[in-house]
C-alpha cells in the first residue's frame, strides 16, 4: 500500500519540467524507491548530508533544504517525517 502511494507521488514529481530523477530514503539511509537518475543514487549520503545540515543549527525549528549543483545538474534534498526525498534536475 505505502509503496503504491510513494510511487504515485514520484511519478507525479517526474512529470515536472527539468526533473530527471527522484530518490526516497528512510532514516537509515536506505533507498525506499527511486526513479530515473535517482536509481544510481546512494541514499546514505543524502540522509547523511541532511542530518549534518540539521546539526548546524539544532535550535532552528524548520527543516533545512540542501541543494547541490554542478555544471551538469542539481540535486535537491529535503526530509520530512524521517523520509528523505532527493530530486535530480537537469541544468536547462
Amino acid at each position, binding site marked *: 500500500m505505502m509503496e503504491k502511494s510513494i510511487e504515485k507521488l514520484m511519478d507525479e514529481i517526474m512529470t515536472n519540467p527539468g526533473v530527471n530523477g527522484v530518490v526516497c*530514503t528512510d*532514516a*537509515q*539511509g*536506505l*533507498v525506499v524507491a527511486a526513479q530515473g537518475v535517482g536509481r544510481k543514487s*546512494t*541514499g*546514505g*549520503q*543524502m*540522509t*547523511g548530508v541532511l*542530518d549534518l545540515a540539521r546539526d548546524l543549527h539544532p535550535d532552528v525549528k524548520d527543516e533545512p533544504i540542501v541543494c547541490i549543483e554542478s555544471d551538469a545538474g542539481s540535486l535537491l534534498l529535503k526530509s520530512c517525517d524521517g523520509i528523505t526525498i532527493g530530486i535530480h534536475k537537469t541544468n536547462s
Partner: protein
Amino acid sequence: MVDGLHAIIITDRDGVPVLKVADEHLPHAAMQPRLLATAAMAVEQANKLGVSNNKNIITVYKNHQLISINRQPLIVNMIANANANTGLILSLEADMQEPLDDICAALELH
C-alpha cells in the same frame, strides 16, 4: 566520518582479523572472534543460495548493527549504533577500494 560508527574490522574469509580500527564505545561482544567468524560463515553460506554471490549482510540488533561487506577474499565488517546511517556506512566501501586492493595484493604474495 560517520556518526555512530564504532569499528571497521577487515577479516579474511574465515573471520580472522587482518586490520582493525575501533573507538572506545565498542561493545565487548564485538571483539570476540566468535562474532567475526560467524559473520564470515554467514557470507559464505549466503554465497551458496543460488542467487549469485552475496554483496553485503546487514544484521541489526537491539543497540548495534553489523554490516558485513563481501569483497573476496576479504570481508569488511563494520559495527555501528543500531540507529546509525546504514546507507552511508555502505557507501564507505567505495572510499576503501584502494587500501582494500593493497591488502589483497599483500595477501596474495604470501
